[in-house]
């Protein structure tokens, strides 16, 4: 069976309006998608978006908004109003009463720490300070060896972190999240973000009041501010910590990066770079 090319060309010449219309609709669709502004970060109009409380809550912005909440809602109403979300939260975190909730907040920074990983990140930060740029993987491994650290676990940890960062850079918001000049200095931002969210979830589960969590949020926020120099630095640390946690739970780096996609989107929305309306743009670090 042969294809009659002449007949096809003749048909298109007679009915050109249809192919043109289909191509036009597809092109228009992509133009509209490209021009549409990104969705804004979920915000609850019933609560302030300025002031100390909002600034402290903004530390948990990624964790809160990727868990169906509004970043400025200290009462986590989305969760308190949903039986299934409350049930999931209790099961996932083991938050059965006020004591277990408080204990989780207090222990989380330690539970999320890893002596080898944290030391290697600190080492890379000091190498970056002396080089004036982010060291390459080779330079990082070499520096670790000079400090007496080598072997399987060291190279495995460095390779995982570098693979995750390379994965971030390939994402749509890659240059915003991790510009070439930036070095992620620790992964503790993840624990602080989770702690801030956990504080609000305690209100949703009836373990504390909004007033009671004010000093908890203030302490978490103060500790985060003492460790990081900007929202960008903190946010990168959060994203790396989150992805590393997924890897620790058994995912390979590809899968962890896929899972971390919503975190990167939330990072972009927290800044709302196009309009400058996100909490990480309007609130000072």
């Amino acid at each position, binding site marked *: 069976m042969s294809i009659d090319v002449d007949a096809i060309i003749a048909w298109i010449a007679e009915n050109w309006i249809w192919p043109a219309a289909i191509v036009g609709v597809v092109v228009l669709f992509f133009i509209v998608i490209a021009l549409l502004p990104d969705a804004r970060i979920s915000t609850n109009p019933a609560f302030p978006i300025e002031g100390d409380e909002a600034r402290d809550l903004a530390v948990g912005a990624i964790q809160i908004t990727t868990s169906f909440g509004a970043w400025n809602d200290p009462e986590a109403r989305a969760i308190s109003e949903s039986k299934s979300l409350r049930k999931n939260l209790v099961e996932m975190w083991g938050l059965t009463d006020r004591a277990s909730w408080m204990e989780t907040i207090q222990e989380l920074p330690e539970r999320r720490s890893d*002596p*080898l990983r944290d*030391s290697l990140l600190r080492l890379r930060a000091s190498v970056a300070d002396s080089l004036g740029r982010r060291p390459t993987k080779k330079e990082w491994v070499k520096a670790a060896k000079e*400090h*007496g650290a080598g072997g399987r676990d060291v190279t495995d940890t460095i390779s995982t972190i570098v693979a995750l960062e390379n994965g971030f850079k390939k994402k749509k918001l890659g240059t915003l999240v991790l510009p070439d000049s930036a070095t992620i200095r620790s992964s503790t931002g993840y624990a602080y973000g989770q702690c801030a969210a956990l504080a609000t979830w305690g209100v949703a589960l009836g373990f504390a009041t909004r007033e009671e969590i004010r000093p908890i949020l203030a302490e978490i926020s103060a500790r985060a501010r003492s*460790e990081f120099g900007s929202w960008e630095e903190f946010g990168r640390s959060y994203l790396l910590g989150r992805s590393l946690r997924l890897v*620790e739970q058994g995912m390979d780096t590809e899968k962890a990066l896929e899972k971390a996609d919503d975190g990167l989107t939330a990072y972009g929305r927290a800044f709302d770079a196009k309009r400058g309306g996100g909490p990480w743009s309007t609130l000072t670090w």
Partner: protein
Amino acid sequence: MQGVRGSGLLRMLGGLAVAVLCVIGMTLLVRWALPDTAGTILAIGIPVVALWLLTVTAVWVVSASRGVRLQRWASSRGLLYQDQLSTAGRVPWRGMPFPPSGRFTVRRLIQGPDDFESGRFRALPTESGASTFLKPFSFVRFPLPVPVPHLVVTNRRSSTLSWAGITISKGRKLGGSTEFDGVFTLHCPPQYERDALYIFTPNVLAALLDYAPGCELELIDDSAYLYFSREPALWKPEVADALLAVTALLRATLERQTHRYRDDRAADTESPSLAALSRSAAPTVGLGGLRLRAGTSHRGRLVFALSWIPFVLAAGWFAWTQFS
């Protein structure tokens, strides 16, 4: 409770039914295809298959009854029990004999509310053939109050780590320092000799010898691992209770010895801009003290080399038949 669904009973009964059907099918096939010799084949074949089925069933019944007894014991002590965990991905334990990732199975996994864990670990071969020469081993893990340098006490009489295919390279061996030199070897990262002797005082080594002879001990980050080459008979309540008691005693001894530990070299790698770190993020062990380097033991290499013999013989036979 584990129940019928989790015990593997249904899988076992299903397998048995399939095996019986296969035997009947094979009998009919032999009678149809080889009517002259069917009598001889079936006279030998049926008893062999029946014996094999009986053996498999007996092994399963013994294993299942041990699992049920262990589960009952674990429930009575408020511990979680899982008869078998088979998965692939990152291995959640950090000790030297555990591979960082891959396929693995853990049998008779017991977990306590105080972060106590015990089980028998076996690395499964990956597609690339890695981990195939690692021998299974039993372990107990419990937390330490603070992170400590990477320290390993190997047993000179029966080394689980060596049998598991692991040897410690580039570390320091501390000998001539205690009266336990004939039994144990203490390994530590270079320049951590004093720290090792601060933690492993003679009373700690005496406790190890008294409570867990034949075991090896590894301290890594904020965890302690005890390794056994042979699986302890935990399905016997008295053995399981003894293991809990021994672990509690060792844990108390190590807690007393480590809770004040602080490595002065820990601040060496601290970045100046991170001077005001929070307590949780502050390093307590210097980078050089966090990991001993592991290599493959002679036994591991030998087992690995031996595992290639069938392939080499097969390749040689193929080459000989083709080209001679």
